């Protein structure tokens, strides 16, 4: 028994050491480089900053291009909140009826849900549609696109959770005189709270971190999202001397997901692993 204990401790220690090297060093590197002076940061080393310029870098990043990153945070906040709100309401309605009602169109709907999950969105035709609706290069346009692309995943989560709510509850509410709308919004929706939290957290992180869709559907500096602020550092013209600012930017946009993770660890895990047990 003692041998087993010693072995588990040794394995644990090795795992901790490896995890520090593989996973923590890159994050430490981000933080350290964000605190360096331009010259120091251009050396690319994993070293303690010779001189702390953390605050200076922060101010520089926040004020470049007339405070582009502040505006970007504002845009990303609106984008995330609005698109996730749409996903929650629309997808819960679909998931609920899809689970409760047996009908011929269920098969069709299930097919489209899966298609939405698998099929890669067609980029230029989507721009063409957005242009036709005069929504191209507008925040509302991007909100609707993000909401659409997230719907399928949300429907699957909602459908699975609705199955765990007893149908007798619906019948009781109906006998008490509730109509279909009251039944859903005042009886069912509140019971969906755990899965709603999961959907909100998982999708909020996904939308906030999304780079591709804003790149295509919302180009331009004035309504950039946070991920697009990093795009300026992608250009070949930028030299290593801006490394400190780039890593400060990365650090800033990593904070919101980090906060989400700290507070909603359990819900994130629940959302990401749903379907792991029942295919």
């Amino acid at each position, binding site marked *: 028994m003692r041998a087993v204990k010693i072995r588990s401790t040794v394995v644990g220690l090795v795992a901790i050491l490896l995890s520090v090297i593989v996973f923590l060093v890159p994050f430490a590197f981000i933080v350290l480089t964000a605190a360096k002076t331009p010259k120091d940061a251009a050396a690319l080393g994993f070293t303690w900053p010779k001189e702390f310029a953390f605050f200076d870098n922060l101010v520089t990043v926040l004020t470049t291009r007339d405070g582009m990153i502040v505006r970007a945070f504002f845009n990303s906040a609106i984008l995330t909140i609005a698109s996730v709100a749409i996903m929650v309401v629309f997808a819960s309605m679909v998931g609920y009826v899809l689970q409760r*009602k047996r009908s011929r169109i269920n098969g069709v*709907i299930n097919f489209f849900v899966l298609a939405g999950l*698998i099929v890669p969105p067609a980029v230029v035709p*989507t721009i063409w549609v957005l242009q036709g609706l005069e929504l191209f290069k507008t925040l509302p346009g991007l909100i609707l696109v993000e909401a659409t692309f997230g719907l399928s995943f949300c429907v699957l989560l909602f459908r699975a959770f609705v199955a765990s709510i007893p149908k007798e509850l619906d019948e009781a509410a109906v006998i008490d005189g509730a109509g279909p709308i009251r039944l859903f919004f005042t009886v069912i929706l509140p019971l969906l709270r755990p899965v709603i939290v999961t959907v909100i957290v998982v999708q909020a992180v996904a939308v906030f971190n999304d780079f591709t869709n804003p790149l295509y559907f919302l180009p331009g500096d004035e309504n950039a999202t946070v991920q697009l602020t990093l795009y300026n550092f992608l250009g070949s013209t930028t030299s290593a001397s801006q490394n400190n600012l780039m890593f400060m930017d*990365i650090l800033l946009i990593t904070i919101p997901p980090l906060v989400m993770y700290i507070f909603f660890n359990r819900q994130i895990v629940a959302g990401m692993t749903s379907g*792991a*047990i029942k295919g």
Partner: protein
Amino acid sequence: MSVLTNQAAGAAEVTAEKRVKPPRPPRKMKSFYPSWFYIPAAALFIVFFAVPTFASFYFSLTRWTLFDVTFIGFDNFVQFFQEQQLLQGFINTFVYGIVTSAAKVVLGLALAILLTSQIIARGYLRSVVFFPVLVSTIGVGLTFKVLLDPFDGVVNGALAAFGIDGPGWLTDPNMALLTVAGVDIWKGVGIATLIFIAGIVAIPQDYFEAARMDGAGAWKIFTSITLPLSRPAMGTVVILSLIGGLRSFDLIWAMTKGGPGFTSDVIASVIYKQYQAGFFGLSTAGNVVLFIVVTAIMIPVSRLLNGKGDES
């Protein structure tokens, strides 16, 4: 005799029941689940997903610029498979998708077994493995681009300390794609691990105990209990990582932009490049090719994974 009366009584009961509460058969209940609940989501789905997808089949057959659309048949697809740089992107998509998802399955399963066993600091290890999943892909890409710098980068610096001459991770045409795939694995292995953990935890402990009673070793337990019983988890990991890997764009764009040359281009980055260059028809043809690749791989894979186990 008594059976008969019982039956009669039963029948009477049924009819009585019917008479007492007629307005509650299941057909009535059905109307409390209104079909129009589908409409808001369906409207979004049709306008922003279905219409563009169907339109892409038409536009892929055209020369499409900012100004006009000309029907040119299959020329875009011919061009796609004739030009070396576009073809390279096509092949790379398979390499990237298969390498990343295979590695995520193997590493994820290994990590999940480690993290469900009795070791110290389990909670810390789980969080640390998972955290990269939540960090912005572009941020990860840019960070590793700096870490993997061939001359001053931290990785090659560390290798040099052991006397190893580190390669030009992102500058060597033979390595760039696999390096990006490696970073993708680093970022995504946490979610695979988590899914496998959920799958393994769901296996009843009695099975392991019974196997140990029968004298099964660790390897035997792995091959005859853990592996077959975490099959649903395996299916989820394979499907998720294949979908992500085949469509992957942002990490590649952040790290190499498809370079050096076009050696690390994938279909998704070709789509973006052609779009930027104003060749909308060719870009859309790329989209259609990606669509076909993804469905052609996903349908047999999900059949295979769901069929044998017969869970759903």
